């Protein structure tokens, strides 16, 4: 019951955030919304796991978290430096 409530809240929030991703207007609004979509997808995953009584899928939520970080940072690094491989050769 409370998981259902939380699921509904997350879905509503997801809809709002996706609408922000679609409306933009700048690329950074989209990137911000994209990152929030990732966060909400992780939370949805966790809550749905409890809702269906099988919360073991959380490893995947962790993977999502790491991927979300990589994806968003790749986009932002591109804007900051204009090149994904910026400090590849500087030892980082």
């Amino acid at each position, binding site marked *: 019951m*409370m998981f259902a409530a939380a699921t509904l809240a*997350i879905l509503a929030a997801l809809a709002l955030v996706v609408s*922000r991703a679609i*409306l933009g207007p*700048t690329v950074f609004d989209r990137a911000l919304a994209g990152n*929030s979509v990732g966060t909400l997808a992780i*939370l949805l995953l966790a809550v749905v796991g409890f809702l269906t009584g099988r919360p073991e899928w959380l490893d995947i939520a962790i993977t999502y978290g*790491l991927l979300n970080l990589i994806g968003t*940072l790749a986009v*932002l690094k591109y804007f900051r430096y204009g090149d994904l491989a910026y400090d590849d050769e500087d030892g980082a």
Partner: protein
Amino acid sequence: MDLVIEIASWGLILTGSFFIMVGAVGMNRMPDVFTRMHAASVIDTTGAGFLIFGLILQAGFTLVAAKLVFILLLFFFTGPVVSHALAQAALTAGVEPILADDRRPGHQATPDDTAGRAEGVAAEQGEQPA
């Protein structure tokens, strides 16, 4: 005792859901990227935090709880990195924040501005029809 835990996790999960909704609404109400980021960080910290604490109470002392703690730590350590990168990238690209009050000394340019690149990106954004 079980009842106490049950009620506590109810409260935490509903509080978390509330903050998630607030953050999402805020992302649609705020006027520009920088102010929207504040709303998004409500989702990342308070919303996710309360929700996951509630789920931990439900999970009890199991591996599931440990994984939830990892997810929470992940949010707390990666969230600021992303926000910071986003703000800096937006500023570098020439997105001017809407400000009521600018206390930066002399309103100097952003740190190590890569000017040529920034103009290109800003020009692209100008063409966007919202």
